C-alpha cells in the first residue's frame, strides 16, 4: 500500500534538535512559521531575524538565511534588510523581554513607518533565557526572580498588551494575537501567521502576530500544567483575535471628553 507522510518536518526547518526546554512552546511556534513559509512558497527568499532570548539560536532551526540581532533591535535590523532588498521576505522572531521591554521603541517605529516586514512576537510572560526575570508582560502577582513576591502593579504597573498597543497606530497592516496552548489554538495561530506573511507577500506593510507561549522552566510549572496556567491567567488579560487588518478602521481611541 502506498504510504503518505501527512505530518513531518517542514522544509523550512533544519534537522537540528532545538535547545528549548521540554514542553516549551517556542518549538511549536517555530514549526508553525516554517509551515507557513513552505505553504506560501517563501522559504527560499526569506531572511529571518533571531532576537536575544531563548530563541537566540533560531538561526540553527530555520532553513533560511538568518540574522542575529542585538537585544530588542530585530525590527531595526529587519528595516535595514528589507530596505536593502525589498524582494526578500523578512521576519523577526522575538520574545517579550526583547520586544516589549528593551525593544519597544524599535517595534513601534518599525510598525509606524510601515516597514514591509512581519514580526512574530512570543509572549511567555517572563524572561526565559536569563533565568526568569520579570517581563513587561508578566502577570500581576506572578513570581519572577526580580519580583520574588510577585509582580506588584503599584511598583511595576500592569502588563503591556502589545497587540492592542500596536493596533492603535494608524500605519500597520495586520495585527493579531494567538496562542498555542492547545492544538486548536495552534491551528488558529497558524492562520494568523499565514495572514501576516500573506500581507507581506502582497506588498502590504507591517504585520505582527503576538503568540502566547509557555515557559515551564521559569514559571516553575510542569509543561502540561503550564498550558492550563496560560489559559487561566493569560487569556483573560490577553484576548485572542485580529486587532487590525489592512482594510480595517483606524483603531486609535477617541477622547473620553473632547476639549476646548
Amino acid at each position, binding site marked *: 500500500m502506498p504510504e503518505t507522510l501527512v505530518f513531518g518536518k517542514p522544509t523550512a526547518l533544519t534537522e537540528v534538535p532545538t535547545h528549548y526546554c521540554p514542553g516549551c512552546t517556542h518549538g511549536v511556534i517555530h514549526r508553525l512559521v516554517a509551515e507557513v513559509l513552505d505553504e506560501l512558497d517563501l522559504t*527560499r*527568499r*526569506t*531572511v529571518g*531575524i533571531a532576537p536575544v532570548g531563548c530563541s*537566540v*539560536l533560531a*538561526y540553527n532551526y530555520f*532553513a*533560511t*538565511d*538568518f*540574522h*542575529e*540581532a*542585538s537585544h530588542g*533591535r530585530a525590527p*531595526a*535590523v*529587519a*528595516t*535595514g*534588510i*528589507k*530596505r*536593502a*532588498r525589498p524582494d*526578500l521576505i523578512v521576519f523577526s522572531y522575538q520574545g517579550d523581554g526583547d520586544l516589549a521591554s528593551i525593544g519597544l*521603541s*524599535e517595534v513601534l*517605529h518599525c510598525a509606524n*513607518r510601515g516597514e514591509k516586514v512581519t514580526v512574530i512576537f512570543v509572549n511567555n510572560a517572563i524572561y526565559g533565557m536569563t533565568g526568569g526575570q520579570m517581563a513587561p508582560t508578566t502577570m500581576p502577582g506572578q513570581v519572577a526572580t526580580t519580583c520574588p513576591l510577585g509582580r506588584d502593579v503599584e511598583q511595576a504597573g500592569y502588563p503591556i498588551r502589545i497587540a492592542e498597543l500596536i493596533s492603535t497606530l494608524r500605519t500597520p497592516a495586520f495585527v493579531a494575537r494567538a496562542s498555542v496552548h492547545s492544538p486548536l489554538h495552534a491551528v488558529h495561530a497558524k492562520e494568523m501567521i499565514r495572514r501576516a506573511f500573506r500581507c507581506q507577500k502582497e506588498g502590504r506593510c507591517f504585520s505582527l502576530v503576538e503568540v502566547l507561549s509557555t515557559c515551564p522552566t521559569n514559571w516553575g510549572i510542569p509543561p502540561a500544567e503550564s498550558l492550563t496556567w496560560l489559559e487561566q491567567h493569560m487569556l483573560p488579560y490577553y484576548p485572542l483575535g485580529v486587532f487590525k487588518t489592512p482594510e480595517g478602521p483606524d483603531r486609535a481611541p477617541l477622547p473620553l471628553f473632547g476639549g476646548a
Partner: protein
Amino acid sequence: MAKKLMKGAEAMGEAAIQAGCRLFFGYPITPQNEIPEYMSARLPQVGGTFVQAESEVAASNMIYGAAGAGERVLTSSSSPGISLMMEGLSYIAGSELPVVVINIMRAGPGLGGILPAQGDYFQATKGGGHGDYRCLVLAPWSVQEAADLVQDAFDLADYYRNPVLILGDGLIGQMMEPVEFKADRRPCKPLAPKTWASTGWKGDRPRAIINSLFLDPEALERHNQKLAAKYAAMERDEKRVAEVGTDGQYEVLVVAYGTVARVVYTALDDLRQAGVRAAMVRPVSLFPFPYEAVRRAAEKAKAVLVAELSTGQMIEDVRLAVEGRVPVHFIGRQGGMLLTPEDIAARVRELAAGEGSHA
C-alpha cells in the same frame, strides 16, 4: 567633474553616493544634519533609500541589517549619537559586516556643546563598545579629502568586512571648500562578491548567518583570533599618514590630525618665515595608527608636540610610538574653542628654545 563649493557634510554624502552607496539610515544631530538632509534629497534621485531612524541605536541596527543583506550603507552622527551606537558597532564588527559611519565630533562630555572638538579619539580608535574589536578610522583634513576618504572607506569596509569610521572634527562637517569628484575612480581595494550576504537561501551556497554569537568558547576564541589577525593586516597595510617637512632638518615635530593639522600647517608656514624649524606628521588613519612614521620623524626632533582639540587622547598613541626617546608635549583646546596658528607657533617656539618642558 568640475569643482563645486560644498559643505564637508554634503561632500561626504555625495561621495557615498558616488561610491555606490544607495542606503542611508540616520538620526538628526548638529553639527552634521546636512548629511541626512542631503541624502534625503539625493538618494531618491538615484534610486536609493533614505530612512530617518527613530534613534541612533536603531540606525546602528538598520545598517547592520542592510550590510548583512550585502548592500553598501552609510550612517552619520555626532558624538552623543555615536555613543549610542556602541553596542551596535560591536555587533557589526563581531559579525564582520562592512559599514561606513561618519562621526562629526562636537564638544563633550554629555550634551556638551555643538562646536568642533576631537574628544572621541579614544572611543573611535580603541573601541568604545565592548569586546575585542576595532574600527578602521580615517580622519580627513579638508573637504576634498573627506570626500576621497569616504569613497575609500566603502572599499576598505567591503574588503575587510569591518566597520570604517570617518572621524571628522566638527570643522570638517560645517566648512565649505571646493571639491571635485573624479568620474573614473577605481576601488582602492580588490573586491570580492559578497557571497556571505543574506539574500535568501536557495541551497546553492552555505546558509548565510549574520551573527556574532558563539556559544562554544573555543569557537569564539578562534573568531577573536581571526578578528585580531584582520586588525593586524590593517596595521600592516592600511596605515595612512601625511608629512610636512620631515625630510628636512627640524627641532620640533608636531603631530596633529584632521583640520587641526591645517592650523598647524599655517603655523609651520609662519614659523618657517621666522626661521624656526619644525615639521608635522598628520595621521590620516587613526586606527591603524602610523606608529612607525611618527617614531621615525620624532627621532629627528628634540621635542614632539601633540595638538588636539581635547584634553589629550592621541597623545597616548604618540607616546606609544616614541617610547620615551623624545619628550612628548601637549597643546589642546576644549569645549569648542579652537587652536590658532598663533597658539601652536608660540608653543613650538618655546620647545625649539628648549623651554616648555613643564608640560
